[in-house]
C-alpha cells in the first residue's frame, strides 16, 4: 500500500452539494464510491482537500464520510486516522468528525440489536 495521496475535491466539482443521484450526477455518494474508496484501497492516508471549492454542505459531507461507515467499508477509528480533511473552517472539520462518530455509534447500536 502506498503512503499518502491528496484528493482535490474541486477537480471533481466546485459545488460539492447533494447526497445521491437525485441531486445530480456529482454528489456525495458518487464521490465516496468512485474517488475516496479507490484512494483508500491504494493509500494508507488520504487527504481530502476542499480548499478550492465554493463551500461545503452537510448532506454531501454526511453522505461521503457517514456513508463510508454505514457501508461497512471502514470503521470509525480507522477512518479518523486515515482520512484527513483540508479546509479553512474548523467548524466544518468538527462537523465531519461528528458525522463519522454518529454513523459509527448508529452502526454499533444496530449490531447490538
Amino acid at each position, binding site marked *: 500500500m502506498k503512503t499518502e495521496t491528496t484528493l482535490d475535491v474541486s477537480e471533481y466539482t466546485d459545488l460539492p452539494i447533494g447526497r445521491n443521484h437525485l441531486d445530480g450526477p456529482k454528489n456525495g455518494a458518487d464521490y465516496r464510491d468512485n474517488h475516496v474508496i479507490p484512494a483508500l484501497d491504494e493509500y494508507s492516508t488520504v487527504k481530502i482537500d476542499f480548499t478550492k471549492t465554493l*463551500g461545503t454542505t*452537510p*448532506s454531501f459531507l454526511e453522505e461521503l464520510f457517514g456513508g463510508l461507515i454505514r457501508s461497512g467499508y471502514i470503521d470509525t477509528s480507522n477512518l479518523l486516522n486515515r482520512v484527513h480533511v483540508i479546509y479553512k473552517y474548523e467548524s466544518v472539520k468538527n462537523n465531519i468528525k461528528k458525522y463519522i462518530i454518529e454513523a459509527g455509534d*448508529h452502526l454499533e447500536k444496530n449490531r447490538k440489536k
Partner: protein
Amino acid sequence: MKKRKASDLNRERISRRRAAYCLTRPPYKYNPYSTPSVLGRHTITLPNTLSVFSSNTREKLYILLRQLREIPLTSKLTLDFSNLSKIKISAVLVLFAHLEILLENNRNSRLIWKKPADPTIDAKLSELGLWALLGEKYRPVEGAIRICSVSSAQNQIDEKQPLRDAINYAKNAISSYEMPDSPEDTDNASFAAISESFTNVWQHAYAEDLQKSHPTLINPSKIQKWWIAQTHIDGQLFMAVYDVGVGIPFSTRRRPWYKFLHSDILHTLKGMNSDSRDIQTALAYGTSRYKQQGRGNGLPTMKRFVEINPNGELCIISGKGVYKYKSKDNREEFSNLESSYPGTLIQWNIALTEDHGNADED
C-alpha cells in the same frame, strides 16, 4: 289552416336547436378570478404592492396568480404594472416563476406589459430580470443579479451555472462588509443554505412518486424548477428561493416518522392550521428521536444561516402555513393563510453590519 312558409320552418328549426342547447348547457359557474376580455385580449392589473409579508398583500398576490391561471392559453394578455409602487423580492420571485411557467405553456402568447409609473420600481424589476423574461433585452446592473432558475433536466446534466452565480453573489455581498460575528461561518453558511434549499427540491418537492395540483398552475407536475432571487441593499442581504413542488406539509405527511413525531409535539401546535403544524413537524424532525441517522440536515442548515446572524430573519411559506424566525430575540412565529400557496417559498434577510437588520428592502 294557415299555409306554412319557409321562414316558419327556419324559425322552428332555430327554436328547436336553442331548446336542445339549453338542456345540454353546463350550469353557469361564477369564477371570481376570470378577467373580462376585449377583442380576445385579457388585461390583468397588478396591485400597488407586491409582497407576501402581510395578509392583505398576500391575498392580492394570490388573486393575481389565480387570474393568470384563468387566462385561456390561446388568449392575448396585457399585464398592467402601472399602479405598482412597492415590491419585495420574494413576491416578485413568485410572480416571475408563475409568468415563466405561463410563457412556457403558451409560447405564442401575445403579451404586452405596461411598466410601473415609478421609475425606481421599473429599474428594480429590470434589474431582477422581469422585463427580460417578458421579452426585453436584459441590461446587467453592477452589484445586482437577475432572478435565475435551474430545471430538473439541467440539474441531471450538472448544468448549475445559475446556482454558482447566486452563491458567488451572496459570498461577495457578505465579504464586502465586516460581519459582526465570525465571517467564516456566514460565508460557508450562505453556501450551505442556498445549496441545501436547492437539493431539498429534488429530494422532496419534486420527488418522482409525488404529484400535487395547484390552483394557480397548469400542469405543475411537468414543471420542475428551482428559482432564486437576491438583492443587497444598505447593509442587508435579501435572498429568496422558490419551487412549485408538492410543498413541505404534503411531503412531510408521507414520511414514516410523521405520525409519531406529530403526536409527540402536538401540545406545541395549538392554534396552528394543519399546514403550519406540518411545517413545525418538519422543522422538529432534525432534533427528534425519530431522525434517521445522517438525515434531516436540510431545514436546520437553512435556519443556521439566520441563527448565526445577530439580526437575521427566516420566512418559510408553504401551503397554508407561514413560519418566521428572528435571530435577534430567537423568536419563532407561525401564522395561517386563507389561500394555499403552491410549492415552497423561503426568504432569508441577513444583516451585514451591526447597524442594519431592521431596514426594509424597499
